[in-house]
């Protein structure tokens, strides 16, 4: 008994201490964050790969382009604190932040900007968006804080492209090793990567701009939908972005421990149509398909109602958007009449190739059923992503497919002669060229409107819906992006209440 007493006191003291520390711990807001993502990035160099997951981890957190896109889709200062464009739209002058540094301590100056842009446009460049840099004629560095970029032709989207992850400023000292050990200028720096599981970033104490509130951010990669739900409910992760298990959302909405945010991505989900192949080379057939698809039912069935219908290749949340969803209302009778007019009174057989994302697999079934209603018998052909790219995108060997085009402001793909839609329109090409020559925002928006109308009238593809940006997060977390104007999990403004 005599020995038991002091032990008990000790235990009691320890318990009190524990409770005390946990109380003080809860009194202070947390400064760490665990973000769940469905896909793991293959590497962490945003200038050397198209995988969205690379930018979702690195954009704005680790790496900074000259300009950044903020949560509303506006261009804001990045590594450059200000910029100006010449009258003719050919000369861009960027002024860098005076005290910007890379995570390895080397200064970030105009020489790094020149190195980055020259590397991205070089003959041996493997930048996934090399075309963004094609208009650049030369990059000059009059002083360490100033970079002057001269274009060989006007490009109305140049600044927007310079705000993409593909244009992240990198240093010659670390460019070769950024895939595994990323060295950027952002407010967070790389800590460690447990391959197959997580990437950990920590606050960069030497950051010269606004300091983030979080001191540690972990990105965890969970591809299985059931495991995603379990990880959220178990409290293992604080937020899951681009959550696509839509059927689980009512559960999270009814639970006060969670907040569900539904916004928009830049992902136009379309029924891509091979415009060069019979019978899709006939606009009446394409219009018939447009009338045959009931977008409301599609959005309810695929996204459980969490999505917005589109009538052309442009997101409703952007300026310049024209609502064309009423152009081809759901009308199976009209669709059948158009098909008969085109010479297919009994419909026809075709194939619908579906890549792996759930929106495509699930949506494809519904689209095929709707097309069957008007006599278009589409055989469903599920394929892997690699095979989809090879056969459909590169080989252009397909009839119909379903995919979300997630690159921001990518309406110009309709002007590319070798793009997999096989769409050719002199009028569209002329509009696109004029757009490239135009700087004035109002005029640009008017041109975007004309482009949208043309694509809708030509019914180039079946325009279905915008892919939603769904974030499920713990209550008390603030600052996560609701919308996705670029592929990014920008956590620089995130904090706990």
């Amino acid at each position: 008994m005599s020995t038991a007493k002091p032990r008990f006191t000790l235990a009691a003291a320890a318990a009190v201490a524990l409770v005390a520390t946990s109380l003080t711990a809860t009194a202070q807001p947390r400064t760490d964050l665990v973000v769940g993502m469905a896909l793991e990035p293959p590497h962490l160099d945003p200038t050397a790969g198209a995988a969205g997951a690379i930018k979702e981890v690195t954009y704005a957190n680790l790496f900074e382009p000259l300009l950044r896109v903020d949560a509303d889709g506006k261009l804001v200062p990045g590594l450059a604190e200000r910029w100006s464009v010449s009258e003719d739209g050919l000369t861009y002058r960027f002024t860098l932040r005076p005290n910007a540094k890379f995570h390895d301590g080397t200064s970030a100056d105009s020489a790094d900007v020149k190195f980055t842009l020259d590397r991205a446009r070089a003959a041996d460049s493997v930048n996934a968006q090399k075309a963004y840099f094609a208009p650049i004629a030369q990059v000059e560095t009059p002083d360490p804080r100033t970079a002057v970029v001269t274009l060989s032709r006007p490009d109305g989207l140049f600044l927007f492209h310079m705000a993409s992850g593909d244009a992240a400023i990198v240093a010659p000292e670390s460019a070769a090793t950024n895939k595994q050990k990323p060295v950027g200028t952002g407010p967070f720096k790389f800590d460690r990567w447990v391959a197959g599981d997580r990437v950990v970033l920590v606050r960069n104490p030497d950051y010269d701009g606004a300091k983030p509130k979080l001191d540690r951010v972990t990105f965890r990669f969970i591809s299985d939908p059931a495991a995603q739900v379990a990880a959220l409910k178990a409290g293992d992760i604080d937020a899951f972005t681009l959550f696509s298990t839509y059927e689980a959302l009512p559960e999270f909405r009814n639970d006060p421990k969670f907040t569900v945010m539904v916004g928009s991505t830049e992902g136009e989900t379309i029924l891509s149509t091979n415009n060069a192949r019979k019978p899709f080379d006939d606009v009446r057939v394409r219009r018939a398909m447009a009338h045959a698809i009931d977008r409301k039912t599609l959005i309810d069935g695929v996204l459980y109602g969490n999505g917005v219908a589109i009538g052309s290749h442009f997101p409703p949340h952007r300026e310049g958007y024209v609502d064309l969803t009423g152009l081809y209302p759901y009308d199976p009778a009209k669709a059948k009449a158009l098909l008969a007019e085109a010479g297919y009174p009994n419909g026809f057989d075709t194939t619908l190739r579906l890549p792996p994302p759930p929106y495509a697999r699930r949506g494809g079934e519904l689209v095929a059923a709707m097309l069957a209603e008007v006599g278009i018998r589409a055989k469903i052909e599920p394929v892997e992503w690699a095979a989809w790219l090879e056969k459909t995108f590169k080989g252009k060997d397909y009839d119909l497919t379903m995919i979300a085009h997630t690159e921001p402001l990518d309406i110009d793909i309709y002007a590319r002669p070798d793009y997999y839609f096989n769409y050719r329109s002199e009028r569209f090409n002329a509009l696109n060229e004029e757009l490239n020559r135009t700087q004035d925002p109002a005029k640009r928006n008017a041109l975007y409107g004309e482009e949208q109308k043309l694509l809708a009238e030509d019914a180039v593809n079946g325009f279905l819906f915008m892919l939603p940006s769904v974030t499920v997060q713990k209550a008390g977390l603030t600052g996560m992006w609701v919308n996705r104007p670029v592929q990014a999990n920008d956590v620089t403004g995130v904090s706990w209440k």
Partner: protein
Amino acid sequence: MLAFLLRRLASLIVTVWLASIVVFAVLQLVPGDPALLMLGVNAQPDTLAVLRSQMGLDQPILTRYLQWAAGLARGDLGVSLTYARPVAELVAERLAVTLPLALLSLALSTVLALPLGLLAAARRGRGGDWAVLGFAQLGVSMPSFWIAILLILLFSLTLHWFPAGGFPGWGVGVGPALHALLLPALALAIPEAAILARVTRTAVLDTLAEDHIRTARAKGMGRVAVLLRHALPNALIPVATVLGLQISFLVAGAVVVENVFTLPGLGRLLYQAIGQRDLIVVQGVVVLLALFVVLVNALVDIACALADPRPKGGAS
């Protein structure tokens, strides 16, 4: 004996070499260009050509095979196309999850099965025996991924004792790493333990029927002492044999359980590499697995040959 060993070694090398040819050839038939996968839907033809040449994909198939096979012979598995890291490094990293997981579940299943088997044998025909046999029947019938889901529901979602998945890495210390591995190991161990408990029970009952046990009892030894000192050691031989057979099932089961718990093991590396068309990684992992199976078979053969003194014919 030496001739037998040499023959076994030669057949081992030939098998692995043939496996390397088959794996390489099959992968050439699968559509999907790794370079295109990296550059995505805005890929420009010239960029694609540069990347393909950097990856060595523009070389003729035979050249690529010979380069890879020559590397294999030197023990070099090549460099991953997507991760830009040596394949051997990637494999070692993933084995650091899969191997401890398999070993932990092996240990757990043994620790669970031996006492249960003994208990059932000691209480033969009574309640305890029925309870153990019932557990064994249940354990054998439930696949490990289903057990995994039940464990997550109970210990992660309801009790919050364990994470629902993921692996923090050994870098953060042994404690958190084992904490993350315990539930998956348990999910793997339960079906194994069920089989093992039944084998233990039967083996102990068989030994209990033997003469030396009766002698020990006649000399006045207690029931428990007889069970532990005489019956158990003798029963361990058949138990160990079954345990050995289970090892390959453990590795296969680990792949499934890794996916439920999103553990970054070898199985998930292979799965991801196939999706990314990282052919070098797929080839390397498959050849390593082939080598593992062939080696285990060879070791079993050699052990049998050593245990059996009769002359070795050419039919082995």
